[in-house]
C-alpha cells in the first residue's frame, strides 16, 4: 500500500491533492426502511484487518513526508436493496471469509425482520465512509526512492 502511495506522490503535481475514499474501519449496520424511517436490525461483523492496514499505510506515507493530511470526514453511506435476494447477492460480493461465520445468522435476522415489516419495505445497509484529504509534500527527503 505504501508503494502505491509513493507512486501517487510521483504522479501528482506539486501541491496536488490525494483523496482517499473508502469504508471506515467500522462495522456496518443492516436495517429496514429508508432515510429517517430506517431502523437497525443487525450489525455486520466484517473482518476489518485490511481497513486498518490501509489506515496505517496512510499514516506511514504522512510520516515519510510524502503527504500532509489536510482534512478528514466521515459520513454514512446507504446501500438500498429491494429484496432478500438482492441482500444475499450483495453479501456474496464480500471477499471469502470477510463475513463468515456471521453471514447466515445475519441473513436470517434480516429475513425475520422483513417478515413482520410492511410490504415493499427495503433493506438498507448503512455504514460510514471515510474521506481523507492529503496534500503532496515536496522536499529532498521524499524525492528519492521512487
Amino acid at each position, binding site marked *: *500500500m505504501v508503494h502505491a502511495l509513493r507512486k501517487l506522490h510521483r504522479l501528482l503535481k506539486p501541491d496536488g491533492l490525494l483523496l482517499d475514499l473508502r469504508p471506515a474501519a467500522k462495522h456496518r449496520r443492516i436495517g429496514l426502511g429508508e432515510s429517517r424511517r430506517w431502523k437497525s436490525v443487525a450489525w455486520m461483523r466484517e473482518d476489518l484487518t485490511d481497513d486498518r492496514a490501509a489506515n496505517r499505510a496512510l499514516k506511514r506515507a504522512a510520516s515519510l513526508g510524502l503527504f500532509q493530511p489536510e482534512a478528514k470526514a466521515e459520513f454514512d453511506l446507504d446501500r438500498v436493496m429491494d429484496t432478500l435476494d438482492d441482500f444475499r447477492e450483495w453479501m456474496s460480493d464480500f471477499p471469502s471469509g470477510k463475513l463468515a461465520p456471521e453471514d447466515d445468522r445475519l441473513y436470517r435476522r434480516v429475513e425475520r425482520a422483513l417478515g413482520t415489516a410492511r410490504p415493499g419495505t427495503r433493506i438498507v445497509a448503512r455504514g460510514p465512509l471515510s474521506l481523507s*484529504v492529503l496534500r503532496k509534500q515536496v522536499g529532498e527527503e521524499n524525492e528519492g526512492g521512487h
Partner: protein
Amino acid sequence: MALVMDPAGDEIQALKKAASWRGRNVLEVGCGDGRLTLRLAGLGALSILAIDPDAALVREARKTLPERYRGRIRYQVGSVERLRRRRDQFDIAVLSWSL
C-alpha cells in the same frame, strides 16, 4: 440486482467539498464500473484517467460511458503501481475504495 448506492448523494457531496474540480486533471484509482467516475466528471474535471485491475468492470465502464464524456474520461485496465505516466501529471488523485 436492484441495489441503489448512496441515494442521498452524500459521497459526491463530500468529494465536491474536498477539492476544486473544475479544469483539473484527475487520476481515479479503483474506478470499477465507473460509478464514481461519471460523478467526478459531473463536478467539472477537465480529464479523468480512471484505472482498475478488473478488466470486466472496465469493459462495463467503457460500455456505459455517455457520449458527452468521451473526450474527458479514459478508462484503463491496470494498477497504479504499474501505471506508466510521466511524473507531476495530475492535480488530484482519488483512491476510490481501493487503498
